[in-house]
């Protein structure tokens, strides 16, 4: 069972890294999701897969006797899932914003902030004014 989980985590890491190296921003975000899930599986596996031994103290004992299923990795994963979900929502919104601003999802087009010298004036120009105005209004309302 551990082997299966390990392979699965490795597969998710591999796919995630492959997608991270793509040029499309959407694929990069999908890659980040896969990496996050791979990490969750990794933590789950590293904590040890023990079946049918809940970490409950029997009525006549003072502590749980090993082996028992460690609840901590699951608590960690739960937290990590919540965090990565929040971050993911933000990333998706950012990709949408970027697409609205630049009309492209090609990362090779996003080089104005890295360039020496000339371009910056364009970089600081507001995007399409009508879009900004309507989005600000929506946020207020």
């Amino acid at each position, binding site marked *: 069972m551990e082997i299966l989980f390990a392979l699965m985590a490795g597969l998710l890491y591999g796919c995630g890294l492959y997608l991270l190296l793509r040029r499309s921003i959407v694929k990069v975000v999908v890659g980040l999701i896969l990496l996050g899930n791979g990490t969750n599986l990794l*933590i789950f*596996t*590293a904590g040890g897969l023990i079946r049918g031994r809940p970490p409950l103290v029997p009525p006549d004992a003072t502590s749980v006797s090993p082996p028992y299923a460690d609840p901590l990795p699951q608590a960690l994963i739960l*937290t990590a899932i919540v*965090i990565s979900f929040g971050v993911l929502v933000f990333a998706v919104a950012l990709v949408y914003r970027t697409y609205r601003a630049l009309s492209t999802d090609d990362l090779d087009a996003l080089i*104005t*902030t890295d360039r020496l010298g000339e371009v910056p004036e364009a970089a600081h120009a507001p995007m399409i004014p009508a879009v900004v105005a309507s989005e600000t209004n929506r946020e207020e309302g």
Partner: protein
Amino acid sequence: MGLTLVLPLLIPLVTTLVLFAVRQRRRVISHGIAIIGATLTLLAAAVLLADVWTHGIRVIAIGRWPPPYGIVLVADLFSSALLVVSQLVSWATVVYATAWMDPDRERAGFYPLVFVLLVGVNGAFLTGDLFNLYVWFEVMLMASFVLLVLGVERGEVEGGIKYVSLNLLASTFFLSAAGILYGIAGTLNLADLSVVLPRLDPGIVTVIAMLFAVAFGIKAAVFPLFFWLPASYHTPPVPVSALFAGLLTKVGVYALIRVFTLLFVHDPGWTHRILLVCAASTMVTGVLGALAQQEVRRILSFHIVSQIGYMIFGLALLTPLGLSSSVYYLIHHIVVKTNLFLIGGLVERTGGSSRLANLGGLDRIHPWLGLIFLIPALSLAGIPPLSGFFAKLLVIRAGFAAGTYCAVAVAIVVSLLTLLSMLKIWNEAFWKEEGHAPSSSLQAKHSLRLVLPSVLLALVTILIGIAAEPVLTLSTEAAEQLLDNQAYRDAVLGARSAQVAYTFPGGGHA
């Protein structure tokens, strides 16, 4: 007893909530609340530092779950000193922002986000648990993501994409490393880990150490992993860049110092040698990048990278002198770098442009602006008697003492190049006759709140340079604490024996 430890987290949190509640109302009210919140947090941090200075390492177990089972907050001299300095610069930035920020970004929640960021930063400094360090990092990152792309300018979203994806990758590395560490050690409490790790196979520990080095290295922007920083730090409004420049990478450096002094000291010949090479390369690449740039804030962004190298240099030596140089450097750098960004903003506003070619003759309308720019600029380059001189002197002395002559040579040459690029800004923006005529002087209405923070931070720079002795004592003591792992363990795990009669809610005994 525990109150001093909790207040630096509680005050910004409460301020955030209050700010969210009033954000639709008048701007003046939210400005006032933000400044009061920042002042109170600064006071709380100062009280904590005084407390740690007199009583030694302070620990509190949250919810009274004894360590290593529960979550602990730990403050030693290193973390509480950083806490004070970071609160100082965030106070300055908040005051500056009340005069700088445009109403749109304020309405979108600028001030609450700043305080969420501070909660994350303070939490990262205070936590005594690796997984909680991850959580605080994420709190800080989420706030910084939103702050970075609060406006919807092209540059902001472009820089934001790079910043977000690289930092999420770093978080994934961090979480994986923490997961594997838990798998082999069975604990994530830092003090407990430092007890358990020496008993484990050094090979796997080194692998985990390198995973942490990559994760924190991305966040701290060390040599091969820094490229997201110059791409994104010059795009947001000035107060945001200043806050990021002062705090975010330093939290990465803090985490590196923490884990590589407390946990991964089993094989310094291997792990710390890699850090040394990274440190030297970071200094060189950062300063060369800065020399190539033609825009004020981009030059400053590259300088963050080169200065990180000096701090990692001190860590890589793992000697008392090396670590105290890192601590001193961190304190000095947080103040100076934030101030340079704030002044860079003033230069942009008065000169009407951020490009050096378009600037010129600024000392004719604002001679004092040139002066308060020169103080942090010369300090960054290491001119005596400013703080940067002592910071660099300590690093170089520590390098000589450890016999790393190549890295010392790099450090000296890099500080000369730093001076060169700082003088480039000075020559182009202030001295040069030609160029566009300065478009406007600062409006009298706002100028006090824009100038006061920079002047105060410049004074601090002079003060910790001229009166370097107390800060040196502080950083030396902090370095000794960092190297004395037994004291850290006693302080954290000793709290376990202090709470003898604790019973679990279920009725079993601990």
